[in-house]
């Protein structure tokens, strides 16, 4: 797994549950060292050991942790860059949703060795969307659910999102967009200098 993924998990668990909890989780996972480097690569299996150790220690379902991770990635100030990069995808939430199938390509342009699961977005023309994620990283659908919930807030959209389930190849999230401009949303300028 790319270090950026592991490092994200690390920051999420540290910032949410504290350094001590993180220390415990790392020890339980059997990872040598006290954390992850975002620009190195680790065994996929290690990432799941860390997630399972967190689920054990925090007595939460792994799915819940993954969804919280997704929300954290967008809404926590320490990782503001992901939210900004995603906002480049579209001018409103619906535009953004329809750009999601480009996300793995965009990610690859930024970090060539970070291979995201393929995404497919289907739109029924009545503000209902179905996002299918290739099952490259089992559980990624739950991360997406958290990410999309936070992004809807970010755009100021009111939407109903649900994990739809999974089959052998994909995990699905359904999105019902109720109101595109429900609230102000968070400001987004194309360059950081302008804010």
């Amino acid at each position, binding site marked *: 797994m790319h270090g*950026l993924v592991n490092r994200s998990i690390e920051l999420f668990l540290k910032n949410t549950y504290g350094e001590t909890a993180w220390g415990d989780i790392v020890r339980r996972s059997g990872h040598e060292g006290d954390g992850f*480097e*975002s*620009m*190195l690569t680790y065994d996929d299996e290690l990432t799941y050991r860390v997630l399972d150790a967190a689920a054990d220690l925090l007595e939460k379902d792994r799915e819940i942790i993954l969804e919280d991770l997704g929300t954290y990635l967008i809404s926590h100030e320490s990782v503001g*860059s992901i939210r*900004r*990069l995603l906002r*480049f995808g579209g*001018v409103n939430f619906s535009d953004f949703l329809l750009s999601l199938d480009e996300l793995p390509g*965009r990610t690859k*342009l*930024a*970090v060539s060795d970070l291979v995201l699961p393929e995404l497919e977005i289907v739109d029924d023309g009545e503000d209902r969307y179905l996002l299918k994620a290739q099952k490259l990283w089992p559980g990624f659908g739950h991360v997406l659910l958290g990410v999309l919930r936070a992004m809807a807030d970010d755009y100021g959209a009111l939407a109903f999102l649900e994990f739809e389930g999974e089959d052998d190849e994909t995990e699905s999230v359904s999105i019902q967009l109720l109101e595109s401009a429900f609230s102000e949303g968070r400001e987004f*300028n*194309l*360059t*950081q*200098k*302008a804010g």
Partner: protein
Amino acid sequence: MDVVTAAGMLDELMPMHLSVSKAGVILHAGPTLQKLQPHLKLKGAAFEDVFEIVRPRTLELGTDLFPAVGTKVHLGFKANGGVGVKGVIVAAPEGDAVVINLSFGIGVLEAVGDYGLTSADFAASDLTIEMLYLVEAKSAAMEASRQLNLRLQGAMIAAQEKAYTDGLTGLKNRRALDYLLEQMLGSKQPFTLMQLDLDFFKAVNDTLGHAAGDAVLCEVARVLNEETRDSDTVARVGGDEFIILLGGYLPDNRLEEIAGRFIQKIEVPVIFEGEECKISASIGMASTHIYDAAATASDLMADADAALYSSKRKGRACFTIFEKAQKSSAIQKAEKSSEEHVSLM
């Protein structure tokens, strides 16, 4: 059905275009271009009042832009200098005006920030938004790599320091000494190599234990650091063996003074867990200036070692300066030295 006007179509496809009449009057300006000059209405203004041609420099235009059709131009705004734009001049279909389609070029990042532009200000086919995304994504990735490099560099320096340091005393170790010795020889500056062996150290270790021995070694290290300049090198190269590199030319009487003080200070007993640990030291020295040709590391080591051997033979707690001219004189010197230090023994 809406009537499609040429201007409306161009505004959508090229929001930074400009059409200019044969008389040099701006007939129409795309909405994004107008945004760059909030205090000036472009439509109806004279092209030459608003713009200056930055490149090609040789292009001298009157009010009529037709002679420049097909030319790539860099334009600047006369009003605020700041952002430059570039594009190409083409003739309009009716033949009575030119159209210039402009873009920001490499200054786009600044322009977007300065004018608060949004994706609505760019044509749908324009890759500017993708470029801005890429700039930001790459900067973030680069920053992550930079942080990793900094941490690796820190770890490398720590590892190097560890590799060049004697763990017990914090003095330099043999590896560091070898490296620094070669460096000093390479610099061609004179210096003196001093070998210092502790006397009666084994007795301390055997009777009072290794912890006492360690305490003694640390105290010796402290003394040697205190009695030398920062530019000198103090290394522990064996259990109770030290090598000191004293930089610069030092006459024999200065070396004798320094060696004498080392021995005197080292002989001050160390109290370890209530027990007195008494040791002394024997010293041999060799200076680079006594060699006719350039001294080598092995010359200096061997000769300082020979001098040290003389000191030990003369009953320890002595120092000897190696003299090249006649090897026997080194021993005489040793005798003389030990006489001088009778009181210290």
